[in-house]
């Protein structure tokens, strides 16, 4: 029996052990689990009792039982309390929702039962019905991640959560709780970053987060201003971005609050006593910075600014400056002071030292100059830094006599020249100049002849009366007095042509001159340069060189490019300067500004001689090195010659054919060619050729033309005869003209027409014109058709025939009857209807109409009277009057031919009344038509 009991006990122990190692329920369940939340820190502390040291933990969001932590941790028993404790940092504010936790013990693979759930309630429980957002007013570093939750008010909907202006994706944690996570947060604005929870209709709640940086302060330095207290300053460093008072950086210096920095936001702190070492602590919610400094007081003296700076004694060349100190302790301090003098081009800095320095004498000032003085000092021993600057103080030095002038004399001929002097700079004038005094003396005259010149003058003309040297003294005057006179004696004039000048080549625009030292140059040398060929007011410049020098570099600053300069070196002594050497050169050669002058071509047979003249020197702008001759074609210039000798100013172009040519001649310097001068020439033949071409060829052509015309005329002789020698029709006399005519019943014709009627006989007893009835006009026009339309040669021939006949014996023989003869010779009667009234026509030339027929019947004894009347009428009437004058001129005219062909000829009715040709058919038209049509 005892054996069975023992076996059963052993079996039960064996099973129990095996169950305890591999099964559930063997390990004791942890006891007394409690949850202690730290809401601002978002941590949850779990404490429990257990004999085990390994535990499984699970934490849930209670409402939805979402597991947020499932972890196995090894936690030892606290020897003091005998409890196990473990802390969990929640990424979510613990207020957001209720959290539950339970725990079980673990021993390798065996675990105990879970402990009962322990819960901490969130703010989303029904008892807290208002909206809330967590966390509030959190201060976090830039770049961190953060989770915000919004607890929605009971019976309110949820729309969104905004982080700043950004709409975030929200996660639902419970019935009323939604959460977002902002990652890599940027620095906030002045009032933080707003996180807003909104429903469909309004803002439910919100929070502000302050995102910034920990303090970035650096470089703590402490110094003393009064040799007793301390001032420590530092650099603020990076802006923390935290503006709100609660998150600003707070400073302590050696454990004391730094009021200057904390309240006034100045980056320094003061301490009433100097300490050997200093520690500044800068702290904000995101971090802490410790800054250290240590130094002896004497090594950190930073003096205050001098006060009451005054100039107690101001002279032309010096001044005494005084000041005082606001700190009495400075009076024993060995200090060094620095004065800064500011003036126009006269800035300088001077150092002074001494114990408690409060006065200095400023030497080497310039007269009549406005100085502005600024003063600052520092400790001489263990110099730390310059102290504060004093307020600027102005000093104006007194005037002094000007310095001696730099004088030179330039001779432009053997007996004329000019004295030049250079204007004095501010440093040399020592006060505003009021003028110059020029005195001259010569060997012939005793004493000096002074002349005063206004301050704007810098030259004075000199004339040598008899060729003897003149010494000129020039002095400048300002209110303080007259300068020492500068004398110069006229140098001997040496024209350029008298010297063998060498060409001066420039180096980078400058002339490098050197000459043989001269024993007579007791006062040194003078280098003079002036534009070559200049006359009148020339820009003469010079530079005086010490006796020890025999070289000089004439800089390009005082030279003009493209201008030829004559550079002379004189030896200076007590007497007149002696010319040592002379050059000519350009600081920079340029292409000539003008082309060659007077470019002329001269043909000689098939050659052309081009000749020209060089351009004026002022236009050369460089030494002429030669000329190039081009033949200008349509599109380009063809180089035909390059003359490298500038003295050669002609060129012969040979072997040109008869054509037109255009030549371009360009002068060139080392800088290149000018634009070129162009000349054109047309090659012509010589005399023999001209004789042949000009005379014989035209003659031959003319002969050929004559022969052709003759042949043509011969073949067309019938037509020629009809065209040029037409048959003259005989006169047709209408009506019976044999019986004498009765008195005329003259009535005016309505038209201004000329009626020509053939009159076989002329009755001289009739006075006035013969009127023709209108009905007869047409027939009469027909009758005179041939006459009226004849061309002039034909008319003349016709006229000659009529006149030559002399068939009318009743013609008067005297000249006064020439008009009658003329009228009679044509055997026509001319009637002017409408031109004048027949009754008034008796007045001869007195009327404005046509009058020759009336004059023809006036006796020859009356021409003078007639002329005078006519002359007067000329001024009154604009009518047709040539026959009046002709009447006057013609009495002595024996030769009728003198009036033939004249428009004033009565015979020529065509000339008198050209209008009639428009009204009548013109035979000339027929002739012309025949000619064109080729009819014979």
């Amino acid at each position, binding site marked *: 029996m005892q054996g069975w009991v023992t076996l059963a006990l052993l079996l039960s122990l064996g099973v129990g052990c095996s169950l305890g190692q591999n099964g559930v329920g063997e390990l004791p369940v942890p006891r007394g689990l409690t949850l202690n939340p730290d809401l601002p820190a978002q941590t949850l502390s779990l404490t429990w009792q257990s004999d085990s040291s390994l535990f499984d933990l699970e934490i849930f969001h209670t409402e939805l039982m979402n597991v947020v932590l499932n972890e196995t941790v090894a936690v030892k028993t606290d020897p003091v309390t005998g409890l196990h404790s473990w802390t969990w940092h929640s990424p979510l504010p613990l207020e957001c929702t209720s959290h539950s936790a339970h725990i079980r013990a673990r021993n390798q693979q065996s675990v105990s039962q879970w402990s009962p759930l322990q819960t901490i309630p969130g703010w989303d429980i029904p008892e807290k019905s208002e909206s809330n957002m967590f966390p*509030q*007013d959190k201060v976090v570093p830039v770049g961190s991640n953060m989770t915000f939750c919004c607890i929605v008010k009971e019976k309110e909907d949820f729309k969104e959560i905004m982080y700043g202006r950004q709409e975030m994706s929200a996660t639902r944690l419970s019935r009323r709780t939604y959460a977002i996570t902002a990652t890599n947060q940027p620095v906030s604005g*002045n009032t933080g970053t707003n996180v807003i929870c909104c429903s469909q209709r*309004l803002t439910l709640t*919100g*929070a502000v987060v302050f995102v910034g940086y920990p303090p970035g302060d650096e470089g703590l330095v402490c110094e003393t201003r009064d040799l007793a207290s301390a001032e420590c300053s530092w650099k603020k460093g990076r802006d923390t971005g935290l*503006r709100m*008072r609660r998150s600003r950086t707070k400073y302590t210096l050696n454990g004391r609050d730094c009021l200057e920095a904390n309240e006034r936001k100045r980056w320094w702190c003061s301490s009433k006593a100097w300490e050997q070492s200093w520690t500044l602590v800068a702290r904000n919610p995101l971090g802490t910075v410790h800054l250290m400094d240590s130094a002896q007081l004497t090594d950190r003296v930073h003096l205050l600014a001098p006060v009451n700076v005054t100039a107690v004694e101001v002279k032309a060349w010096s001044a005494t400056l005084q000041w005082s100190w606001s700190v009495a302790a400075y009076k024993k301090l060995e200090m060094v002071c620095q004065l800064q003098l500011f003036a126009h081009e006269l800035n300088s800095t001077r150092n002074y030292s001494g114990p408690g320095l409060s006065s200095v004498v400023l030497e080497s000032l310039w007269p009549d100059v406005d100085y502005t003085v600024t003063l600052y000092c520092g400790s001489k021993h263990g110099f730390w830094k310059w102290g504060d600057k004093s307020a600027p103080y102005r000093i104006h030095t007194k005037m002094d006599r000007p310095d001696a002038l730099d004088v030179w004399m330039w001779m432009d001929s053997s007996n004329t020249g000019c004295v030049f002097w250079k204007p004095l700079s501010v440093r040399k004038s020592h006060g505003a100049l009021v003028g110059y005094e020029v005195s001259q003396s010569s060997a012939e005259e005793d004493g000096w002849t002074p002349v005063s010149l206004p301050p704007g003058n810098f030259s004075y003309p000199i004339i040598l009366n008899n060729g003897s040297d003149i010494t000129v003294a020039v002095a400048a005057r300002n209110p303080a007095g007259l300068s020492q006179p500068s004398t110069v004696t006229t140098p001997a004039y040496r024209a350029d042509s008298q010297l063998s000048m060498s060409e001066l080549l420039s180096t980078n625009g400058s002339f490098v001159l050197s000459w043989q030292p001269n024993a007579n140059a007791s006062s040194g040398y003078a280098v003079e340069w002036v534009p070559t060929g200049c006359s009148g007011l020339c820009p003469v410049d010079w530079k005086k060189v010490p006796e020890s020098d025999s070289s000089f570099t004439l800089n390009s600053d005082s030279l003009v490019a493209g201008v030829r300069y004559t550079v002379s070196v004189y030896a200076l002594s007590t007497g007149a300067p002696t010319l040592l050497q002379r050059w000519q050169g350009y600081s920079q050669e340029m292409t000539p500004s003008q082309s060659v002058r007077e470019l002329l071509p001269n043909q000689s047979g098939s050659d052309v001689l081009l000749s020209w003249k060089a351009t004026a020197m002022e236009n050369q702008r460089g030494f002429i090195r030669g000329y190039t001759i081009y033949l200008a074609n349509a599109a380009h210039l063809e180089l035909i010659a390059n003359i490298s000798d500038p003295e050669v100013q002609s060129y012969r172009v040979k072997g040109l054919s008869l054509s037109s040519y255009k030549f371009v001649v360009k002068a060139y310097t080392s800088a290149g060619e000018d634009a070129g001068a162009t000349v054109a020439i047309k090659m012509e033949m010589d005399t023999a050729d001209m004789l042949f071409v000009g005379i014989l060829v035209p003659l031959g052509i003319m002969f050929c033309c004559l022969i052709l015309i003759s042949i043509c005329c011969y073949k067309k002789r019938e037509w020629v005869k009809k065209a040029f020698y037409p048959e003259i029709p005989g006169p047709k006399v209408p009506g019976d003209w044999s019986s004498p005519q009765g008195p005329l019943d003259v009535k005016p014709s309505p038209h201004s027409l000329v009626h020509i009627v053939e009159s076989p006989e002329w009755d001289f007893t009739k006075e006035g014109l013969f009127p023709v009835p209108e009905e007869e006009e047409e027939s009469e026009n027909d009758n005179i058709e041939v006459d009226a339309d004849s061309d002039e040669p034909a008319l003349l021939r016709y006229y000659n025939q009529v006149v030559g006949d002399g068939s009318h014996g009743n013609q008067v023989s005297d000249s006064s009857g020439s008009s009658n003869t003329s009228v009679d010779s044509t055997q026509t009667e001319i009637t002017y209807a409408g031109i004048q009234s027949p009754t008034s026509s008796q007045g001869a030339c007195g009327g404005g109409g046509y009058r020759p027929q009336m004059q023809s019947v006036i006796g020859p004894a009356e021409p003078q009277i007639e002329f005078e009347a006519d002359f007067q009428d000329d001024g009154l009437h604009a009518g047709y009057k040539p026959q009046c004058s002709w009447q006057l001129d013609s009495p002595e005219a024996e030769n009728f031919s003198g009036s033939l062909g004249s428009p004033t000829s009565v015979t020529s009715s065509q000339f008198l009344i050209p209008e009639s040709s428009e009204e009548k058919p013109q035979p000339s038209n027929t002739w012309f038509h025949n000619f064109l049509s080729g009819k014979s």
Partner: protein
Amino acid sequence: MEGAADSDTPVPERSAADRAAALARLLHRDCTRLLELYKEREDFLSQHAPGGERLVTLALCPEAPSTAEQVGHVRSALRRCMELLECLIVREVEEMGEELQGEYESLRKTVKDRLGHLLHSTGALLENGEGGCPPSPPMQCIQGQDEVEASDSFAAKIWTYKVLLELIHWTDSASQTLHVFHTEKHGQQQQQQLL
């Protein structure tokens, strides 16, 4: 400014009520602009209007049958607004310091000064304290913090927004009431002159 022209232009025989009404109109425009500036700083206010109760009400005041009594009521509300504004300034200066001196801070001070002038002007109009709704109990600035129901920054921003809304509302009410008051006074004076 038009408002400045209203208040600065010398008008002969302009009544005190008329001047007070003009000052109230000017102050109303200032308050409106101040709220715009605040919305520029806290841009969420432009998108979502916070809800909640009014900060200044006259619910406890009796009915005001006369215009003079209405002026007295408005003046009481303005006095409360003045207390809120002073509390607002203290809080903002305490939080932000005085180094921020933008347009908002400048206009905030102007509103405070002009509101003080308006209170003085309306007080002078009410010769016998007529319309005397008992003024709200003196508000300590700490009580102003209580008004926001929390001490966090977001609640303070909402509270500031509400204070500015109250300023706009009551300055507008003041301008209208003072205008009516001026019109009635003017009519009475004319009737007296006719008699």
